């Protein structure tokens, strides 16, 4: 084959340049702005204003804490829902597998904001869900479900669930059934075979799913906005408000960086565990 050594760079060029100019460089600008002082009316000035970062943490520590609690709980719930479901589809789905996978990604076929608003309808004070909970005595007659941490976490769990199910399904589906049989031939109980064979082999999917759920959940502000009240504001709400409504760019940029740093720690830990191309699929390990 006589291919120029430059060919790959021509192929990569346009796309990577785009990512550089509209992703990497903007990040650098945000870093720069986060160290500015001043305001929109007085003008901004760059003078290594590290105070923006310490202010961000002291002023919005509550929202940060809340964000990681909500996103963390939502991720765990999504895992608890997704794993058995993915297992059922992969091993008990039979000829319905494709159809069931379809149903699993179905929420993605409706607009994100509308499906969150649908939960607003379902959980509304006068809605059937609250009436049911009151009927069976789980909540008091005048207590509400909407505008509580529970409703925000429920929305986060719901909205990012397919991100959890798909990678877990992919790794379960790739497991060679003969390995489980071999374990059983060697007198492992079903439970032992699951814990010692199936579960470890599906861990890449679990880790990918956890990240793909946690990352968007930690940055989300729609669920807190639609399903929460003033007491459920997450860090995304703060960043959105500071950037778009109040235009306090330096403070908002500093907050964005702290959020990004925390999320990056999770991702780097993951990459150490699973390899640098792991987020992009597992085909190479399988081949």
């Amino acid at each position, binding site marked *: 084959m006589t291919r120029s*050594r430059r*060919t*790959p*760079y021509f192929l*990569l060029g*346009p*796309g*990577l340049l*785009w*990512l550089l100019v*509209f*992703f990497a460089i*903007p990040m650098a*600008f*945000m870093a*720069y*702005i986060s160290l500015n002082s001043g305001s929109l009316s007085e003008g901004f000035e760059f003078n290594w204003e590290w105070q923006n970062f310490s202010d961000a943490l002291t002023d919005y520590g509550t929202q940060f804490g809340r964000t990681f609690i909500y996103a963390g709980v939502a991720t765990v719930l999504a895992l608890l829902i997704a794993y058995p*479901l993915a297992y*059922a589809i992969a091993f008990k789905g039979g000829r319905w597998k*494709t159809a069931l996978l379809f*149903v*699993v*990604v179905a*929420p*993605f*076929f*409706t*607009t*994100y*904001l*509308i499906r969150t*608003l649908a939960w*607003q*309808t*379902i959980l*509304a004070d006068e*809605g059937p869900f609250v009436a049911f909970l009151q009927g069976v005595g789980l909540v008091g007659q005048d207590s509400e479900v909407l505008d509580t941490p529970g409703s925000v976490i429920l929305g986060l769990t*719901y909205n990012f669930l397919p991100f959890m199910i798909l990678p877990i399904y992919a790794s379960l589906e790739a497991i060679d059934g003969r390995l489980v049989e071999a374990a059983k031939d060697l007198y492992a109980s079903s439970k032992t075979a699951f814990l010692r064979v199936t579960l470890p082999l599906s861990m890449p999917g679990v880790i990918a799913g956890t*990240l793909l759920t946690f990352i*968007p959940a930690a*940055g*989300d502000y*729609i669920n807190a906005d*639609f399903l929460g009240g003033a007491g459920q504001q997450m860090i*995304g709400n703060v*960043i*959105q408000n500071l*950037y*778009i409504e109040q235009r306090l760019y330096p403070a*908002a940029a500093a907050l*964005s*960086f702290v*959020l990004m740093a925390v999320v990056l720690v999770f*991702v780097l830990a993951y990459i150490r565990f699973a390899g640098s*191309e792991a*987020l*992009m*699929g597992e*085909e190479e390990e399988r*081949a």
Partner: protein
Amino acid sequence: MAWLRRNGIRIYGALAIAYMLIPIVVIAVFSFNDPTGKFNFTWNGFTLEHWENAFSLPALNEAFVTSLVLAALATVVATIFGTLIALALVRYEFRGRGPANILIVLPLATPEVVVGAALLSMFVYFEVARGFSTLLLAHIMFSISFVVIVVRSRLIGFDRSIEEAARDLGAGSFETFRLVTLPLIMPGVLGGALLAFALSLDDFVISNFNSGREETFPLFIFGASQRGIPVEVNVIATMLFVVTVIAMIFVVRQQRRAEALASASVPAGESAPGPGPGALSAGSA
């Protein structure tokens, strides 16, 4: 009890699926609602009125058309860029693969609110007016990585010997690509394009930061959520759902057909389902 143990996982799965479908059913059902006030939250009565007048709100139509045009343009550019990157990553050895991978994965690993804020920071710094063009730049940017992932997974399973056969039969590099490679990776490219289109159509967060006065479908919904969502939004959302389901079925069919085509190339002796060696005739023109 034994029955429960055997079928417990199925019951759990069915419940989980019900949880996933409930909001979609609610959206569809409330598109037939005849609400009394401006809030479409409580069921009041059945009407087809909003389906008959689905496109009677000019602001909503405008936002919806903006979204469609934006998604179409972003999809074309992102699909071309992403496919080229995927080809380079799978087919070539080159220096700088590590940084390239990082640049592709990082946008996926960054919360959308941070991506949107960073882009706005740059536009503010250079005093770029926000509008349709900034939306388009942003949508292309966040779609590229997704296209790369989808097309890349398709390319990894690609049997290169088919291309060699085409060359042996006298096809040039470009002919081989156009007549053999492209048709075979087409399902991946199509899947990537569909994903890019869906992501663009649905994007709220990054658009919220970089739209200026331009209004897309999700931005319209966000604005309307304060003063009451018109029922027509439910109608359009339900239509979108149905169209997407049909498109997905189409792509899955395509994928199956291509797999059947590709499996025709397994070495003699292994029985392969699907069309025989004749499937290659398309490449020997």
